[in-house]
Structure formats: C-alpha cells, structure tokens
C-alpha cells in the first residue's frame, strides 16, 4: 500500500482522529484515558463515603445519598475504570505482542469504545434525576432494585446494556485477533502470558455479559411490563435474581483479575532478568481458574437459604479455586528466586501486587468456609477482602502496566522519582484504608451503612484518613503521565534491560503502524 493509492500513514488531525480512528493504539489510549477519568469520578464518590464515615452520626450526607454513592462508586469502578483499562491495555499491547498490524476488527473496535462515554454519561446523569441515582448497591438485588427502586433505574438498566455490548464486542475482537493475527511462527504455547490471560478473559466476557444483559432485561420487564420474574407476589423469586447476578458476577471478578495475572507475569521476569517460572502451569492454572469460576457463584449467597447439599458443593468448589490461584503466586516467587532483581516503579507495583493480592486471596479462602461466612457475610470483612484483590490487585497491576509500557507508548521515560512517590503513597494509603476493615468487619460492622455504633469509630477514622491519602496520591500519577507525554529522557526500543517480547522490537514511541510484515518469533 503506497500513499499514491491515497492511504494515510499517519494519524488524521483534529477531533476526527479520535472520533473515527480505527487504529489500535489510538483506541487503546482513549480507553486508558477514559478509565482514568472514571477512576477519579468513582474515587471522589469513595471519598464522600469515607467523609461520612469519619465518625459516628450523620454529618455530611443523608442516608439516601450515601446509598447512591456506594452504588455508583461500585458500578463506576467495576464497569468504568477497571474493565476499560484492561481493554485499553489489550488494544495497545496484544497486537504488539503477537506481531499483528492492528486488531482484527478495527471498526468494531472504534464502536465498542464510543459506546462507553454514552453509557457512563447516562449512568452519571441519574445523579441529577428526580429521586436520585441508583441506590441499591452495585449488586442491585431485587426487589430493592425493581419494585422499590427510584425511577432512574431504567436509565441504569440501559447504561448497563450499553457497557455490556461494548465489553462483548471488545472481547470478540480480542479473541478473533489472537486466534487469527499471530505472527506465523508464534504458536499458542509461545504467546506471552498477558495475551494468554486476555484470551481466557475474553471467553469469560462473551460467556457472562449476556447473562447480565438478560438479568437487567428481566428487571426492566418486571418494572415496566408487569412480569414478575423476581417478585414472589406474582410467582417469581427474588433469589433467582441473585443466582443470575452471581453467575455473571463471579466470573466477572476473574475478568478483573486474570489480565492482571498476565501483566504481573510479564513484569516480574523482566525485572528479575530470568524467564517466568512454570509458563505452562501458569496457562493451565489460568484456564482452570476460568472454568472453576463458573461453579462457585453461590458462595456469595451462603445465607440466602440454599439447601445443605448446595451449600457444601459451593464451599468445596470455592476452596478448590484457591489452589490454582496459589500456584500462580508460587510461580511468581519462584521466578524472583535466584534472579537478578532491580526495583523500578513497575516492579514495586508488581511486588506489592503479589503480597497484597495474596492477602486478599487468604481472606477469600476464609470466606469460602461456609459456616464462618455466616459471620463474615455482608460485613466490612467482605469489603476488605474484595478491595484487597481489586485495589492492590487489579488497580496496581494496571498502574504497573502503565509504568512498564509508558516509555513504549510515549517514547519518553517517566519520572522515576515521582513514580516511586506515587507507589509509596498509594501503598501506605491503601493499607491504612483497607486493613482496618478486616477488624471492624470481624467485630460486627455491617457493610453499606451510613452510620455506625461507637465501638467502630477508631478504625473507621483510620480508614478515612488512609482513603484520603490514597485518593490524593493518584494525582501524582496524573502528573507523571502528563510529564511523560510532554517529554523526558528518550526511551530506547528495549526499555528495560531484562525485557523480552515482540513489543520491544519496535522503536519507542511505537510508530502509528507496526508489524505491517509479520516478525520472526524465536
């Protein structure tokens, strides 16, 4: 293809570059910027929550608004921040890592991104509607989210539909790209782990997002068209809602962590200057986690009154899923063992990931013990658990990835000092925020309450101060990104001494078009 035929080789200019682009790098950047924006919006809601919980009593907000904050915070962080960030990373890196010129379905790629701003504009607009935003928790259990919901619930349903379509299309694109566009000599068992984990994640997405879509559609017909899927008064069952939601929801939590496993499996070998230990077992562990993730959903429902046999089955299955999860941690540690390590910012985030995610895994294992879950369920102990797997888990892996590949994206090195400052402030902030939640949870503080009895006051104050530290530290990250985009020390093609993989064969910054002829894979 020559320019004589009228093809562009560089990006278009102005706003049309972003509106109409089919370039995986542009779309990847847009996903990442969008998710960062959502991270700050969702984060400010978390700070409203922490502000109200500084001390007992109602000070800052009323209970109805508090519930809107917890709900919107959860929805935005899950669907607006973490998931789009991973899709952005996939867009940028999967083609570069498998030696493909672009994603397989570039127009679809553009469409799936541009659905998101509309979805979240609609979701956020509920905040100013009569009756307020959704206030029934990110898990939106019926009938609180149907019969008893504020009128804005219809907009919420439509927003979920849009975000869901976006995810499904994005996932299809990843699957088609990985299956068809790999450099000819790259067999499946030579693929980098980030590509592997994303392939598996994409299958999970295609499998469960339609279930979520079905569930919200059933809500819609219950609310507007007189059906009673979730209304016992009409022959329905509120617990059916929970089965459907968690059949989506448990794989969903793995959707938010498998790509993170991939990222850590790229970064740890690089900075240990040593190949990943147990590549094959990592692939098998990821696949078995994905398969098992379809069989554990009712561990979120131990107290709804499922029969004893069901309770036992879901307890055993959940305990089992921690085995492959453990294998991954052991493999990372074995990779570091006898390596030659350095500790640049991506590695710091990766090490913190391994330690703190493992703590989240431990509390997961405790929650799996069904009888004990009767005491843990719906307390702050659960809040501590899932924030440990999601914040130093998913979010830290995204941060690690951003630092790791930013020089490849921008052509400039980021500011290492600021990066480390960002890391340490985040690290201290998040542990101050979430570790005390284990204690208040065990001592009996229910989750999702705007006010609490006085025995929980001290730890909540610590959590709130930690929350503010963590929240404001993220501004350092914005500073790092802005500085890095603007300039800085020029990055080489191989940014990190120990880095291996096709993405390091292209210059930094990666040109607008890469791998127009497929590379050789050793």
């Amino acid at each position, binding site marked *: 293809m020559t320019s004589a035929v009228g093809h562009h080789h560089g990006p278009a200019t102005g706003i049309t570059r972003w509106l109409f682009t089919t370039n995986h790098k542009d779309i990847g950047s847009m996903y990442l910027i969008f998710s960062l924006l959502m991270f700050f919006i969702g984060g400010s809601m978390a700070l409203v929550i922490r502000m109200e919980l500084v001390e007992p009593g109602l000070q800052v907000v009323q*209970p109805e608004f508090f519930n809107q904050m917890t709900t919107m915070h959860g929805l935005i962080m899950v669907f607006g921040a973490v998931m789009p960030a991973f899709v952005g990373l996939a867009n940028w890196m999967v083609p570069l890592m498998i030696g493909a010129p672009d994603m397989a379905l570039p127009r679809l790629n553009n469409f799936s991104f541009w659905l998101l701003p509309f979805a979240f504009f609609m979701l956020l607009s509920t905040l100013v509607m009569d009756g307020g935003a959704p206030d029934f928790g990110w898990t939106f259990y019926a009938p609180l989210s149907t019969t008893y919901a504020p009128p804005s619930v219809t907009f919420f349903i439509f927003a979920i539909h849009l975000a869901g379509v976006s995810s499904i299309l994005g996932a299809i694109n990843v699957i088609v790209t990985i299956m068809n566009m790999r450099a000819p000599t790259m067999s499946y068992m030579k693929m980098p782990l980030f590509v592997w984990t994303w392939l598996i994640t994409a299958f999970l997405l295609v499998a469960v997002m339609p279930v979520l879509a079905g569930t919200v559609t059933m809500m819609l017909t219950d609310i507007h068209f007189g059906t009673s899927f979730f209304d016992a*008064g009409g022959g329905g069952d509120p617990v059916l809602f929970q089965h459907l939601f968690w059949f989506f929801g448990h794989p969903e939590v793995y959707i938010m962590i498998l790509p993170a496993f991939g990222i850590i499996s790229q970064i740890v070998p690089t900075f240990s200057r040593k190949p990943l230990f*147990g590549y094959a077992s990592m692939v098998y562990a990821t696949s078995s986690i994905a398969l098992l993730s379809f069989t554990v959903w009712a561990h979120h429902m131990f107290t709804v009154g499922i029969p004893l046999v069901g309770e036992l089955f879901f307890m055993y299955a959940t305990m089992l899923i921690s085995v492959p999860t*453990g294998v991954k941690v052991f493999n990372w540690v074995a990779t*570091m063992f006898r390596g030659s390590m350095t500790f640049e910012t991506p590695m710091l985030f990766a090490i913190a990931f391994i330690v703190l995610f493992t703590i989240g895994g431990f509390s997961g294992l405790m929650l799996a013990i069904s009888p004990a879950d009767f005491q843990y369920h*719906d307390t702050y102990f659960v809040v501590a658990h899932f924030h440990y797997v999601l914040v130093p888990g998913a979010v830290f892996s995204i941060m690690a990835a951003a630092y790791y590949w930013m020089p490849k994206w921008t052509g400039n090195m980021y500011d290492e000092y600021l990066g*480390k400052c960002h890391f*340490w402030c985040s690290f201290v902030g998040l542990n101050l925020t979430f570790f005390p939640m284990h204690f208040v949870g065990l001592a009996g503080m229910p*989750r999702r309450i705007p006010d609490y009895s006085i025995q929980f006051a001290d730890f909540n*104050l610590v959590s709130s101060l930690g929350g503010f530290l963590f929240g404001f530290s993220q501004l350092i990250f914005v500073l790092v990104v802005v500085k890095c985009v603007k300039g800085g020390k020029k990055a080489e093609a191989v940014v990190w001494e120990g880095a291996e993989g096709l993405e390091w064969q292209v210059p930094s910054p990666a040109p607008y078009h890469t791998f127009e002829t497929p590379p050789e894979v050793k």
Partner: protein
Amino acid sequence: MKERSCSSAALIILAALWSVSAQADWALNMTEGVTEVSRSIYSLHMQIFWICVVIAIAVFSVMFWSIIHHRKSAGAKAEQFHENTTVELIWTIVPVLILVAMAVPATTTLIEMYDTSDSDVDIQVTGYQWKWQYQYLGEDLSFFSNLSTNPDEIYNKVEKNENYLLEVDEPLVVPIGKKIRFLVTSNDVIHSWWVPAFAVKRDAIPGFINESWTRIDEVGIYRGQCAELCGKDHGFMPIVVQAVTDEDYALWLADKKASIAAEVAAAARIWSLEELMERGEKVYQTNCAACHQVGGQGISPMFPALKASAIATKPEQIDEHIKIVLEGRAGTAMQAYAAQLSAVELAAVITYERNAWGNDTGDIITPQSIQSMLKSK
C-alpha cells in the same frame, strides 16, 4: 534517599493516629459468642486464619529473602531455570490436602447449623423497611421492634450513648437453654437477621421462609443489625435479644399479653384530640417519619409529603386517608399498617397527620371508627 521521605512522612501520620485514639477500644476479632455453634464457627475461623498465617510466612519469607539476596545491586547473577515438575506437583497437592483437612470440620458445623428439627420455641421474624416483627408461634403474641435511638444523637446534637444505634423499643425476649427456631421472612425487600453472638444470620426474603436456630447458654442482652442492604434506613434497624431464664420468660410472656389486652380495651373509650395527638406523634415518629420525614415534607418523588397535602387536609378524602394507612399502597414502600398497629395507634396517627404541621383540620379519628372500618373488610 528521596523515596524515603515519602514513607517516613507516612510513618509520622501513623504515629499521630496511634496517639489520637490510644484511649479507645480496638476490637479486632470475631466474637466467640454464647452458643455451641458460634463457638465452633469461631474455632473454624481461627484455624483457617492460622493456616493462612503459616502459608503467608512461608511464601513471603522466600520472597523477601530473594528480594534481599538476589538483587542486582548486590551483584546477583540471574539463573535461567524455569521449570520443575516435582516442585509444581508439591505446591498443588499440599494445598489440596490442607483444604481437605479444613473441609471436614467445616462440613460438620454446617450440618449442625442446618438441623432445625425438634425446636422448643418457634419465632417468626419478619423484616420490614425498617424494623423487625417478632411473632411467637403458638403463643398468640406478636410485636414490632423499632430503633429507639434519639434522632438528636444521630444528628450530633447530644452525646451518643453506649448502645448508640444498637437499641430498640421492644427487644426480642427468649429463654436460655432452649432450642429456638427462627422462621425468617420479609414483608418488602430482602433483609438479613443477624446476631453475631449466636452466629445466626439468615436472609429475610419476601415470599419465602428461611429457617435457622440457636440455643443460648447465658443470660444477657445480645445486639445485632440488619446485614442486607434494604434501602434508606438499612443502618437503622438493629436487633436486640434479651435472653432470660425460663421463669423470667414465663413472667414476661404473661406481662406482655396483659399489656396487649389493655391496649385493645383502650380502643373502647373516648379519646380527646389532645390525647390522640400526643399518642399519634409517638406512633408517627417510630413508624412514618423515616419516609414522610419528621416535618411531614416527605422526600420527592419516592415518599410523598403529608404536610398541606390533599389527602391529609381535604374532608372528602378522610376515608381515602384511612384506607391507605390501613391497606398500604402496593408496589411502594407504603405498608399496610392495619396488621402492624392497634386501633388506638391507627386512630392516633391519622388524627396526628390531619392536625400536625399546620394541617389543622380539627378532624378526630376515633379508634371505634377504625375498628368498624376494619370489620367491614
């Protein structure tokens, strides 16, 4: 060097925090509770906790040992090994064995928790937005239990008492040493009835009845809270259980029944506007103010205003007003209070709504008129 300054700043904050609240009670762990089941759960919790601690120490010490000794700056040369089937098998099989060992006591405890047969006392627990109803099956006794914390404490106008948000007007009273079966259900959304000291947590699901049981060892007052998000006042529907000896329980039953009978008798006498207003205000605060607000202004559009509203002021809408209070409005948070309040309470609260906040209609709704309306159904 410079990175150090970030972390030392953090340390200073930590130290400051520590001194600020050094005087406080930092409860760390799950309660052992006062039942056999709660104690088995506590020991399961501690077992799995220590298993996690041991694994954590093993894994993290290898990791930190590597971080310290195998760093490039310490001159470490990277080895290139990347596979070892034996090791991989070991760290797959050993965790499985540990988990099997853990699954055995967990299964035993779970089976025990599910055995609701042969109970001595049966109590139906019904969740409402935002209170609990207790019905003693076979005793013809039923009452509601509401949060009794003074709103001024919630809004920081007066000092909070030690049972802040964990106190109710009518606690559930049960005998010790007896097997008590709870039949848990709900009238509206899903709630969850949880008393940590008994390790009883059961979701209250509208249209379905869940079973659970306990046998309490010690006399005492045990407090819990609703555990499932159930709307606006989810944080304000506590549970208080008073466990008493058999004799005290019998006395309490008799007493409670007598006071209910007195309430029924009171419906027959003539009530003045002042009396009704005084009683009505109390009933309104506990049952209606959560939604319609203390000043009657409601929260648009979910909870309509009563102040200056047509229904609470127009003479031709009196019957409609009474009907809504008695029967509720399907598909909304407005409940059917005929089943929850006595005739006197209903008359009082409707009278109150028609005369408070400048509604000043002068209407008096008598307990007798409520009774006849209920009979005509």
